[in-house]
């Protein structure tokens, strides 16, 4: 212990992280860590998600070495792990209890048997709804509704003159914004991004049905200007009592049941994410995790820190300080075994069920060559989903017909894949090795 303390002496760790509530709490609690690890200084770089992603990607791809700890998502971890840009986290200490991590979540961060990042929190998409409004109309939300049912409810509950909109959904363009939701809608309509030969499948009936359904639903029974609304905007709308239903990340539950942040703390209820013709891939899985870039010069100190920030004692500490419902969700099975957490967090059961049901390895009804539900685990995905997301946000505001937009997207995606060499060889060996 003494030896390791000496080895850590005077290390300054630069930590890049997102400005989400759970990460801000980590920063606030990190004073404890610095106290118990004299000589270790933490230098925080807290940025908005997209900006952080740009900074981290350019840093790691050019081996810049600016960061010792990176906060990365379920999309980057397997890609960067496969490139060996991350420091593998093997032989974790017994008291860390790797077996306690959700198996699906751990799987998402593992490449060729090596864990490349440790989960900080994980989320599935779930349906939030207002039980008071449902009761007033005599409606019942099924445990797992279909999108058609969501539409029927939205028609009945949409009441813009009183400032309540039938359903709030993400409309803001971005692969992590509207495309995350739309990916799950397409999956539940039986669609997929690519066929096993990596031919894009955007100009196919399931996509047309899903996108038409989404645009019709959101533009008729949603809030005004839906193309501006991402996760945070919808969270504010729902917390302010303006939405009857909302399908989004389960992590919002912590805010919505907190009376300090939410006007609907006692009125919100939870169901699984909607399905349609299949429930495969109908709920997304996203993991925020902590990883160490291979270019870091202080891997030992960094490893010690990320294990602290994802450990059981840390989760307990957050619960004590901020209320037990604020415990970072979705990473450890033991969180969901604790009765006081399950009682304090009414969304915990739905989150738990959803996280256990998601299967990133088999995300769609028809076979696909990729892993990931709302994401496709190839580097080109960011480019293609950004483009498709922009086009669909445009269609949502009435710029362009859906059929035409999807044709444009189909050819644009095909172009990108062709440029990246996916169709050069009959079955590129390199591609199949990728996660």
């Amino acid at each position: 212990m003494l030896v390791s303390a000496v080895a850590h002496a005077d290390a300054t760790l630069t930590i890049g992280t997102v400005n989400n509530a759970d990460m801000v709490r980590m920063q606030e609690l990190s004073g404890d860590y610095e106290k118990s690890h004299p000589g270790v200084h933490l230098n925080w770089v807290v940025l908005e998600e997209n900006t952080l992603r740009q900074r981290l990607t350019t840093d790691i791809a050019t081996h810049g070495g600016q960061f010792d700890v990176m906060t990365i998502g379920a999309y980057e971890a397997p890609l960067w792990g496969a490139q060996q840009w991350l420091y593998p986290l093997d032989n974790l200490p017994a008291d860390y209890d790797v077996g306690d991590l959700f198996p699906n979540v751990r799987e998402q961060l593992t490449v060729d048997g090596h864990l490349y990042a440790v989960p900080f929190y994980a989320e599935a998409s779930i349906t939030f709804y207002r039980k008071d409004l449902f009761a007033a109309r005599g409606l019942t939300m099924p445990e797992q509704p279909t999108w058609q049912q969501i539409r029927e409810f939205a028609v009945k509950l949409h009441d813009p003159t009183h400032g309540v909109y039938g359903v709030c959904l993400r409309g803001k363009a971005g692969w992590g914004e509207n495309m995350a939701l739309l990916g799950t809608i397409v999956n539940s309509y039986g669609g997929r991004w690519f066929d096993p030969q990596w031919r894009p499948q955007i100009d196919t009936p399931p996509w047309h049905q899903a996108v038409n359904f989404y645009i019709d639903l959101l533009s008729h029974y949603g809030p005004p200007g839906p193309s501006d609304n991402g996760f945070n905007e919808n969270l504010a709308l729902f917390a302010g009592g303006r939405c009857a239903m909302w399908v989004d990340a389960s992590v919002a539950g912590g805010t919505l049941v907190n009376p300090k942040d939410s006007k609907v703390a006692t009125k919100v209820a939870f169901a699984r994410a909607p399905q349609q013709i299949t429930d495969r891939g109908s709920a997304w899985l996203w993991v925020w995790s902590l990883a160490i870039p291979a270019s870091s010069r202080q891997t030992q100190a960094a490893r010690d820190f990320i294990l602290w920030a994802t450990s059981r004692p840390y989760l307990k500490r957050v619960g004590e300080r901020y209320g037990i419902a604020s415990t970072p969700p979705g990473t450890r099975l033991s969180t969901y075994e604790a009765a006081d957490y399950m009682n304090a967090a009414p969304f915990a059961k739905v989150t738990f069920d959803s996280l256990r049901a998601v299967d990133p390895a088999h995300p769609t009804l028809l076979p696909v060559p990729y892993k990931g539900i709302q994401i496709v685990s190839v580097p080109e995905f960011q480019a293609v989903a950004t483009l498709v997301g922009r086009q669909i946000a445009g269609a949502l505001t009435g710029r362009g017909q859906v059929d035409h937009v999807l044709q444009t997207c189909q050819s644009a995606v095909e172009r990108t894949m062709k440029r990246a060499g996916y169709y050069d060889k009959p079955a590129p060996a390199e591609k199949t090795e990728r996660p």
Partner: protein
Amino acid sequence: MSARKSKTHPERLLAQPAILMLFAWMIVPLLMTVYFSTQYFNLLYPKKSSFVGFENFVYFFTYPSFWTSVVNTILLVGSVLAITVVCGVLISVLVDQHFPGQGIVRMLLISPFFVMPTVAALAWKNLLMNPVSGFFAWVAQLFGLTPVNWFADWPLLSVIFVVAWEWLPFAILIFVTALQSMDREQKEAAQMDGARTWDVFWHLTVPHLRRPIAVVVMVEAIFLLNVFAEIFVTTNGGPGDATTNVPFVVYTQALLEFDVGAASAGGLVAVVLANIVAVFLIRLIGKTLTER
């Protein structure tokens, strides 16, 4: 003659280091961009980079948003120039008359120029144009009208407003100063000969402002071709491609798609476009500057 030559020679020598440095400052990034524009270089596949010739340019020109972005750039630059020059001249003439509080009014007119573009854009987006909580929505509701969702329904127009608001003070600053050097006696003489206000404005003020207008157009055009922060903060190039201009496409390529090759090609295309505009403007303005 020879004495003058020997006198200027050491001066030239002394200027060489500065010139060299400025040259390197410009040429090194440019050459790197040219080099990268011929490579397939995606940050997500650093090992796969290879020489691809003109493929990046072909890719950039056939990018679905490219032509929209060129049109948007021209619309943005053209409209903002028109608004700032026309309104700038009119406002400058108005505040050129003496009235109580003239100094304060002039200062207020110029102050938007000191607001950072990102801050200005955020203020417009959240405080003024927001369809729920914005000032314009409040005014519309006061008159029983439906609030306009500016950035979703009129995205390019909204961006033009924001940018014009930022650049109008610059135009006013230049025009007000220019008007102060205008010959008052000439104006008075014209008025005594029975010229109406309009005639004075059209035949004396506007010709006097020709050169300042030329300066404003040239300086603004250079900056307006590169408008990015306002778009990034307000609409993020959307909805669809509605507010995507050429710099924004380059940004999309480089930092959202991490395709350095295509982004470099795009950067070069933007440089060429800017040069075309510059050549036009310099021809145009050079003429007005030398015509006396």
